[in-house]
């Protein structure tokens, strides 16, 4: 699957690495797993059903408190890493219903049902 990232995502990633909160090896490990197997249990892909029809998809970097939010398109299959941050920020984002509707997830049900719901 094609995996891209926004400039802001990469900037935040660099900041987390610079602060010693995350190592680049840990990030590369997640990216490697995700590219090969997006539903791998190690990266804990989660669908967070926040409104009736809206979903946020999150990933976890193994052995850290860092979470990623991913924008996924199925036709053509693309993933864009849009947000990365600490668990504290992540909790704040998913608690706010206004954030739900903004995550596009236009896959068929059959293509997404294997992602675990939180």
């Amino acid at each position, binding site marked *: 699957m094609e995996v891209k990232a*926004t*400039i802001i995502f990469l900037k935040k990633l660099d900041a987390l690495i610079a602060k010693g909160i995350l190592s680049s090896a840990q990030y590369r490990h997640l990216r490697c797993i995700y590219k090969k197997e997006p539903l791998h249990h190690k990266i804990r892909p989660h669908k967070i059903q926040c409104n009736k029809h809206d979903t946020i998809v999150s990933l976890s970097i193994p052995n850290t408190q860092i979470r990623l939010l991913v924008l996924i398109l199925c036709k053509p299959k693309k993933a864009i890493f849009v947000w990365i941050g600490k668990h504290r*920020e992540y909790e704040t984002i998913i608690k706010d219903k206004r954030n739900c509707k903004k995550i596009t997830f236009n896959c068929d049900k059959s293509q997404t049902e294997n992602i675990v719901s939180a």
Partner: protein
Amino acid sequence: MTYSNFSYETQGNVIEELFSSLSKSMKNAFSAYKKELLLESIQTKTFKLLQPIDRATSELKSFRDMIALYYINDIEVDSKVLNIFYDDLEESKDKVECLLDEEAFTKLSPVIGDRLHIALEELYVELVNISFDISLKIGESCIGSESNYHFLEEA
């Protein structure tokens, strides 16, 4: 003011003025807090800090509405504007996060400490949410347009 067709191209000056006003409010909030922390009379003066913090929070709420309606016409131009704002937000968010973990709260009386903590927590929530809104706005504009897709980088 209406936000219909709101973009940097049509409302550039307004956006810059709003950004500058917000930035000033945030600076006031933090400089006031730092100065006051040094004073022994912090207990009695803490309530004065609440005003700039609450003002910054309410300004951020308006900004969130603005960002939600912000239409990206030209990713090259708009992302530069949003990036500058994003950097300020992240810097402020890190400062608020440090303040929230500050042990000084425990030295304040429960009423004042709790009120200050709640005000900072609200500020933190707004900062996190706007940073997220900007991240997503740029992501969505890239994925939704072939001409903007090149703006994405390898993950």
